[in-house]
């Protein structure tokens, strides 16, 4: 779901670029609390892993594919602020080296995938951790549900950008419904990949999974 240049007009792209920049500056300040000597490589490698998995488009419906966005996966593995930065690095590499996602559209993509997807994942994950049994086995499920929800929400963020400054002529309602239905399907793939990855890492190094090892985060959000 990388927006190319031209879909959204320049003023709207610039406005969302400003929001994306604000989000990234906050993440840069706050990520300190999430990375230490032991977990800093984990945050970097999470970005690498997400870059790799984003290359693996899976078929979802006739003539349509989807790929991992990774907001929920990164958030559960390394925490929301480090996750946001990790996804932004991925988006930057994709836009600059591979012309995947436009350059003037980079702010739109960072807003949708590094800010909104991570934020929504964080909120849904916390809610699920609260509702589900307090067991390690509940973490992949909570991560999967967060991942599932994050995709249609990010897709709707695109629709919002289209509504404000889309260069197309299709009505916003039509685009909204088409984006939502397609990305509900892609969300299933996102949930499966996220659950499998989180399960595998929990099984081998649960101390490196932020969403499991940093329990104080769940207390923080409750207050």
């Amino acid at each position: 779901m990388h927006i190319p240049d031209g879909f959204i007009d320049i003023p709207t792209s610039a406005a969302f670029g400003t929001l994306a920049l604000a989000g990234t500056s906050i993440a840069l300040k706050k990520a300190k609390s999430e990375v230490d000597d032991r977990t800093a490589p984990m945050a970097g490698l999470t970005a690498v892993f997400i870059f790799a998995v984003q290359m693996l488009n899976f078929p979802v419906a006739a003539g349509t594919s989807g790929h991992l966005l990774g907001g929920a996966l990164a958030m559960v593995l390394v925490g929301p602020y480090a996750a946001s930065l990790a996804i932004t690095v991925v988006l930057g590499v994709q836009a600059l080296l591979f012309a995947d996602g436009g350059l003037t559209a980079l702010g739109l993509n960072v807003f949708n995938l590094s800010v909104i997807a991570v934020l929504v994942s964080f909120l849904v994950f916390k809610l699920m951790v609260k509702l589900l049994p307090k067991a390690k086995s509940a973490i992949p499920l909570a991560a999967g549900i967060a991942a599932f929800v994050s995709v249609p929400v990010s897709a709707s963020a695109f629709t919002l950008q289209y509504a404000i400054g889309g260069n197309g002529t299709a009505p916003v309602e039509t685009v909204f419904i088409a984006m939502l239905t397609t990305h509900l399907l892609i969300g299933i793939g996102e949930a499966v990949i996220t659950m499998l990855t989180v399960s595998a890492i929990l099984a081998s190094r649960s101390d490196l999974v932020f969403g499991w090892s940093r329990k104080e985060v769940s207390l923080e959000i409750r207050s």
Partner: protein
Amino acid sequence: MNQSKNNLKRFYALFFLAALSLAGGLSYYASSSPDGLEKVAEDEGFLESAEDSAVSNSPLADYGLVGLDNERLSVGIAGVVGVLATAVIALALFALIKKRS
């Protein structure tokens, strides 16, 4: 203590190798159908509003090495370069963030 440190290194090495083999090998088998946004843009008639990115003539544009006909090698090289570029930037970024804390 020492053993746990070694285990950590081994875990990170495996995690990196997993990413490298997914991007360098499995990516060849990825679906080439348009992704969700591209399909919607096509169906709703705004795909033509897309413009070439300023770097659309990058030698690695669209995840292939320019001038290389072997599709498997082309996407594999693109994947490996992407993994290495992401690793250098992301590992340096988080090492800097860690240092400041």
